C-alpha cells in the first residue's frame, strides 16, 4: 500500500488530498468520484457560474418562490439556523448589498447599508420553495462552500470505506479521517500571520478545522478587510485569526467566520450553541506583531 496524493483546482482555490494506505488505482477511482462531486457542487453553489442552481435561485427568488430540490432546500434551512445560532454574525446575504454576490467586488463600493439578513429568506417546507422577502437579497456561497463541499467529500470517502486521510481545501478548511500512519490522529499547526511560527496546534481525529481572518498581506491588498460584519454594518479590518475545530467542516467554516466578526462576549454565546466545537482566537493589538492566543471558552451560564 502506498500514500496517494491528488489535487485539483476548484471554487477559486486548490483542493489537496492525502490518503495513506490505499493503492494508486483505488486512489484514482475515488479521486475521479470526488472530482465529479466537487464539480457538481460548484455548479450548484457558485455565484460565478451563471447557470448554477444558486444563481438561478438568486435570480428567481426575489420575484417568486423558487422550488428547490431537497439538497438545496435543506442547505438553505440549515444556513438560516446557523444565522440564528451565530446571533446573526454568520450572514451570507451580503450579495444583496454588493450587487454581485462577491465580497471582492464590494471593495469600496457600498459603505452602507449593511443590514440584510437570512431572516428575510422565507422557506416553505411543503412545497420546498424559497422566496426572498426583500427584492435585492442574494445568497453568497463564499462563507460556507468549502466546508459544505468537504462534508460531501467525506461521504464519498466513507462510501468507499476510506477512513484514513488528510484533505485540505484552500489550506483554510481541513478535514481529517482516522489516524496519521505513524501516530494518533493528525497534528495541525496554525502559523503566526507575521512570523509563520506556530501559534497553536490542533490535535484532530475524524473532525475538521477551519481558519478565518485577516493576514497582513491581505490587508495590504484589501485594507478594509474581506470579511463583512453585517450586524455592525462595517468591514472587519483587524489582523488576526479564529480557528475552529469540530465534527463538521461545514459548521466549522461557518463558526470561524462568525467568531472572527463577533466580540468576545458574543463569541462565548455563539460557541455555546455549537457543542463539540473548539475555537482559538489569535489576535493582535493595533501596531503589535505579538499574538494574543486564547481559547474561546463556553459561556455555560
Amino acid at each position: 500500500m502506498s500514500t496517494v496524493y491528488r489535487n485539483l483546482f476548484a471554487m477559486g482555490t486548490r483542493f489537496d488530498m492525502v490518503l495513506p494506505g490505499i493503492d494508486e488505482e483505488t486512489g484514482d477511482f475515488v479521486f475521479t468520484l470526488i472530482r465529479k462531486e466537487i464539480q457538481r457542487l460548484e455548479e450548484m453553489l457558485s455565484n460565478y457560474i451563471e447557470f448554477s442552481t444558486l444563481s438561478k435561485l438568486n435570480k428567481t427568488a426575489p420575484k417568486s418562490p423558487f422550488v428547490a430540490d431537497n439538497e438545496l432546500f435543506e442547505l438553505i434551512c440549515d444556513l438560516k439556523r446557523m444565522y440564528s445560532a451565530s446571533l446573526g454574525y454568520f450572514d451570507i446575504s451580503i450579495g444583496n448589498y454588493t450587487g454581485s454576490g462577491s465580497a471582492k467586488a464590494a471593495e469600496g463600493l457600498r459603505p452602507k447599508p449593511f443590514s440584510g439578513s437570512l431572516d428575510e429568506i422565507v422557506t416553505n417546507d411543503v412545497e420546498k420553495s424559497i422566496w426572498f422577502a426583500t427584492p435585492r437579497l442574494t445568497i453568497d456561497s463564499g462563507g460556507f462552500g468549502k466546508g459544505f463541499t468537504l462534508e460531501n467529500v467525506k461521504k464519498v470517502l466513507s462510501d468507499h470505506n476510506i477512513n484514513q486521510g488528510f484533505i485540505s481545501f484552500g489550506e483554510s478548511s481541513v478535514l481529517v479521517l482516522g489516524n496519521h500512519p505513524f501516530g494518533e490522529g493528525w497534528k495541525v499547526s496554525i502559523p503566526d500571520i507575521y512570523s509563520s511560527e506556530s501559534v497553536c496546534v490542533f490535535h484532530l481525529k475524524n473532525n475538521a478545522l477551519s481558519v478565518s481572518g485577516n493576514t497582513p498581506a491581505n490587508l495590504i491588498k484589501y485594507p478594509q478587510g474581506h470579511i463583512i460584519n453585517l450586524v455592525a454594518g462595517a468591514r472587519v479590518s483587524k489582523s488576526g485569526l479564529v480557528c475552529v475545530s469540530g465534527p463538521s467542516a461545514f459548521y466549522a467554516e461557518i463558526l470561524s467566520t462568525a467568531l472572527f466578526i463577533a466580540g468576545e462576549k458574543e463569541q462565548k454565546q455563539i460557541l455555546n450553541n455549537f457543542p463539540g466545537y473548539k475555537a482559538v482566537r489569535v489576535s493582535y493589538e493595533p501596531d503589535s506583531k505579538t499574538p494574543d492566543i486564547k481559547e474561546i471558552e463556553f459561556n455555560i451560564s
Partner: protein
Amino acid sequence: MNDQKSNARRDFLKTFSLISGSTLLLSQMPWLRDLHAQEPGRRIKLGIIGSGSRGNLLQLYLKEIPECEMSCVCDNYPPNLEAGLAIAGPQAKGYVNHIEMLEKEQIDAVIIATPLHEHAHIAIDALNAGVHVFCEKSMAKTIEDSDNMVKARQKAGKILLIGHQRLFNVKYQRALQLIRDDKIGPVTHIRAYWHRNNDWRREVPSPELERKINWRLYRDYSCGLMTELASHQIQVANQILGEVPLCVWGSGSTNYWKDGREVEDNVSLVYKYPGGTHLVYDSVNSNKHYGLEEQIMGPKGTMELEGGKMWPEIAPPAPGILQLINQIEHKIFDVIPIGGASWIPDTAASDKGEYIWNEVLESDGTKMEMEAFVSMVRENRFVPELLRQGFYASVATLMGYEAIQKNQIVNWPENLSL
C-alpha cells in the same frame, strides 16, 4: 551601423546570451554555438528569389543583419519584384529569371521564398552554381524532389537550410530540453493542430492571375494544408521524438470552401512512430476556436508548445501538504502547518500551468534563423542536423499528403539520400 540595426543586434545578442547561459540548451541547439562569436568583417551578398509576403518578411529580418546585404532580387511577378527591391535597397538589382541572376551576380547565397513547386529546381540550380541556399519550408512538392535537393547539396558541398523556424525558437528548444530532462516523462502521445477560419485566399487583381496568386489552393503548386501548415508541426514532432514516423494514415476533404480550390480544406492524420507513439494531426479552414498548438503528453505531464506552458499530471502540493507527504515517506509523525485565512482573495488559485520560457520572445525564431544562416554562410559551416530536420519533415509531410490522396497507409520510404 545605424540605430535600427544596432538595436536589433543587441536584441539578438541578448536573446542569445540567455540561450548560451545554458550548456544543456546549447546541446539542443548546437547550430547556435558559434553565433555569438561573430566579429564584424566581410559582408556576404545575398540574392532573394521570391519576394512575396514571406520573402519580404525574411528580407526585413535580413536588413537588420549588418553582416549581409541583399544585392539582387528575383521575382517573376512585377508587384512582388518591386516590393522586394524596395526593401533590399538601392544597391539591389532586379531579375525575373533566377538562372540569369545566378549567372550575372556574384552572390554567396540565395534565399528562396517562392511557391512550393519552384523550391526544388531553383535550389538545385543555385547549389549547382556554387551558391549556399536557404529555402523556405516545405522543402519540396515531392519526396523525389526533396531527395534531389539533398543530392545536389552533397555534390556541391554547400549549405542547404530549410526554413523551419521553430528550430531557432528558444521556447521550443527549451521545451525539448525539459522533455529530455524527464519533466513530463517519456513522450507517449502528441496532438497537433492548425485551425483557421478563412478562405485562405489572397486578393487577385485579374482572373488570369488566380493560380499564380492563390497557388496554395492548387495541386500543381502546393499540397495545401499539409505542406503549408502541417510541415512545421511535423518537424516539431520529429524533433521531440527524435525519430521519423514509420507510417501514416489519414483523410481529407473539402467540406466547406467549395470555391474551386483543388486542395483540401480539412485534413486528419495519424502518424505512427517507433515505440508505438502517435502524432494525431488535424487542420481545418472553417473553425479557429482551437487555433494552433502542439500538445506533448507524457505520464508525468503535458506541454503546449505554441502557448509555451506545461502542466504536471499532479500539481505540486501546497507547502504544508508537501511536508505531510515527506513525513509519511520518512515515517515521521509531526505537525502539519496549515495557514491562510478562509476565502481571502489572494489564496485563490487555478491550474494555470508553468511557463516553459519566461522571457518575451521578439520573433517566432525566423529572425534568429536568418542570423544563423548568415553566420553559417560567412563561416562556410554546414550543419547536417538542420538539413535532416527539414528533409525528414518534408518526407513525413508528403507521406501524409499521399496517404490522404490514395486513402492508404503510407510507409517511410527506403533509400533516401539522408
